[in-house]
């Protein structure tokens, strides 16, 4: 009987993941990660969410434990997140959490404890290809989360089960309701789990010395000022505090001079973007023509890789440095990289 450690956030997806694995006859243990000791109003960290997970585990009939990874989360996820903002980047902390916590420390602990697999409630699939296990998009395209798992290699995938990836979200909720799970109608968490909604600037402001600077237009004419670059991300339109005729977007952030450049939407369009930390899964796709996705639920674009530069087939809205670009061949995720500048 395979032994599976399922990570239960207290949400409906991981609740159903645990139930499905148990129904399959696996020897299942539920764990909830305590990642964040500070204030937040959603995500993986609150006592209420832990209690939901614990109660669902009891209902399903599996043991449940809490792992305290708050020290590691601070060092491996929160600090790099803050540092990235300080460097003018727009990081994706969920990707880092998946890499370092869920498929890093938890996977390692599970292995040490003799578990054959870890499982999560992510909407994505692990499929077996001729090249070994590969990550594939979820059955429910609208909920697909393969983007935030792009970094999983064959080694991790061989020890990973993603049971709800085969179901639509509606089927997940229906299954939870049929079992009478208390999380069946729980709303989804959308934001960064360690920051309260709308309080990113305050969170960063408490950790990064803020440096005011100028907001300039494409010609370098000063059109406004700001209190710190961490409030801005490439492509941002709201909250610029600049009154000009047409819509303006953040098109560039210069960390050295703390200068934010704004321009029309067209100015955001680029053909090339440089990547760093490019990694491929064992299922390599054709780097000359692949689908690339630069947002969690964005529409894929066609691009090719030229050295460390991604070249879009058609001009593409600029992606902020620090963001992930995931590579796909059809439904298969074959790797990705991080936007360098």
């Amino acid at each position: 009987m395979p032994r599976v450690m399922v990570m239960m956030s207290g949400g409906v997806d991981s609740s159903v993941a645990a139930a499905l694995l148990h129904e399959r006859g696996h020897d299942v243990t539920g764990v909830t990660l305590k990642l964040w000791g500070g204030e937040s109003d959603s995500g993986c960290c609150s006592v209420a969410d832990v209690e939901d997970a614990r109660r669902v585990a009891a209902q399903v009939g599996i043991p449940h434990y809490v792992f305290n990874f708050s020290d590691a989360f601070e060092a491996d996820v929160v600090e790099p997140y803050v540092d990235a903002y300080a460097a003018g980047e727009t990081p994706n902390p969920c990707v880092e959490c998946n890499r370092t916590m869920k498929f890093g420390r938890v996977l390692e602990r599970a292995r040490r404890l003799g578990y054959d697999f870890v499982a999560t409630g992510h909407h994505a699939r692990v499929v077996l290809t001729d090249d070994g296990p590969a990550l594939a998009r979820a059955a429910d395209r609208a909920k697909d989360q393969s983007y935030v798992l792009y970094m999983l290699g064959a080694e991790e995938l061989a020890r990973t089960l993603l049971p709800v990836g085969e179901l639509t979200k509606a089927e997940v909720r229906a299954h939870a309701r049929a079992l009478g799970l208390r999380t069946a109608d729980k709303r989804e968490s959308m934001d960064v789990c360690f920051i309260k909604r709308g309080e990113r600037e305050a969170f960063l402001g408490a950790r990064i010395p803020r440096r005011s600077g100028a907001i300039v237009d494409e010609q370098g004419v000063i059109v406004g000022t700001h209190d710190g670059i961490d409030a801005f991300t490439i492509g941002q339109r709201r909250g610029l505090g600049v009154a000009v005729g047409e819509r303006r977007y953040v098109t560039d952030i210069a960390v050295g001079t703390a200068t934010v450049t704004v321009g029309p939407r067209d100015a955001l369009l680029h053909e090339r973007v440089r990547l760093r930390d490019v990694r491929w899964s064992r299922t390599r796709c054709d780097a000359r023509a692949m689908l690339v996705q630069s947002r969690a639920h964005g529409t894929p674009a066609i691009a090719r890789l030229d050295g460390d530069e991604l070249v879009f087939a058609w001009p593409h809205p600029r992606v902020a440095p620090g963001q992930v670009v995931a590579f796909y061949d059809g439904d298969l995720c074959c790797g990705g990289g991080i936007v360098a500048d």
Partner: protein
Amino acid sequence: MPDRPDHAYLDHAASTPMRPEAIAAMTPFLADHPGNPSGAHGASRATKTALEEARETVAAVCGCQPQEVVFTGSGSEADNLAVKGGAWEARAHDPRLDGVVTSGIEHKAVLGACDRLESEGFRVARVPANGDGVVDLDALARALDDRTAVVSVMLVNNETGVRQPINEIARLVRNVAPRAVVHTDAVQAPQWLDLASATADVCLVAMSGHKFGGPKGVGALIVRAGTELVPLVEGGGHERGLRAGTQNVAGIVAFATALRITHGRRAEDTARIAALRDELERGLAAQVSGFAVNGASAARVSGILHCTFDGVEAETLLLALDQQGVMAASGSACSSGAVDPSHVLLAMGMPRERALSSVRFSLGYASTHADIDAALAIVPEVVAKLRVT
């Protein structure tokens, strides 16, 4: 392979099974006696009598007068009443009395109350412990002054089991900070120590029923005559005005019964449990490398073995042990159930990594030789497995 018992409960310091006599004593007050002890009719007299008999029983064990016993809803509540109530009372009499002295190894019930007082403007000193887990008396003496209102040091540490010199502390306080009241969190003590002598010089003593075979949700605070407190809960004047609210008669009766039985059997229980604990300690030391006992050279109570397994995360070890039926603990579990690095071990100067590799096995009156056999069969094997990368 010899048969293994299916489980070993080694977390008595967290909670003990109830004494059967305590369950028997409380049942009539759940099933048969509905009266409010504050009432004036026959049904009330039955519960009032039981309540006051329980108070007398507790007083007899603790070496105090019945009117000095205040029943509460928990040990934490008793600690809060003592620390906050004592500090508020002192400041109400003399605003200069704004000092609170405690130790870094206290239970969070005391530390939390002190944090609250600090936010209200009290000066709080948290004295560290030495490497064996004994509060540093020199540092404590330096923290005292003529403005100290409350001194709170526990009698037995809940993690290491190390006994603190509370009577000595009380005498020190009397000389250096004569206006201060001395409180001791004695929650871990009744199973192991004679409370009357162990707390003879102390003004306030907190206890919790479920640590010695009583029910959860009942505590008591001994408030020696002459010690004034501001209550946390006000209302109908119950418990000499120190804790309003209709008393949990059934729970209090069981509390007193368990305390009386624990007291009566202490000598034989303690000797038997100490032998079991020592056997566990020797067995682990012999079978497991990188094993160290914490508080080894201090005076420890008989039921606690607190130890460090080098290179093994306690969180992982406890999970693996639980799956084999061995139930132990680490640090102090927070409300979510996660294991935090123990503030007690950190206050003893232990490095964070060692603190996160430390586990408490705790025994109680219900512990048997089979528990130790199971632990010795399972713990070394599990530790070895977890150390293989």
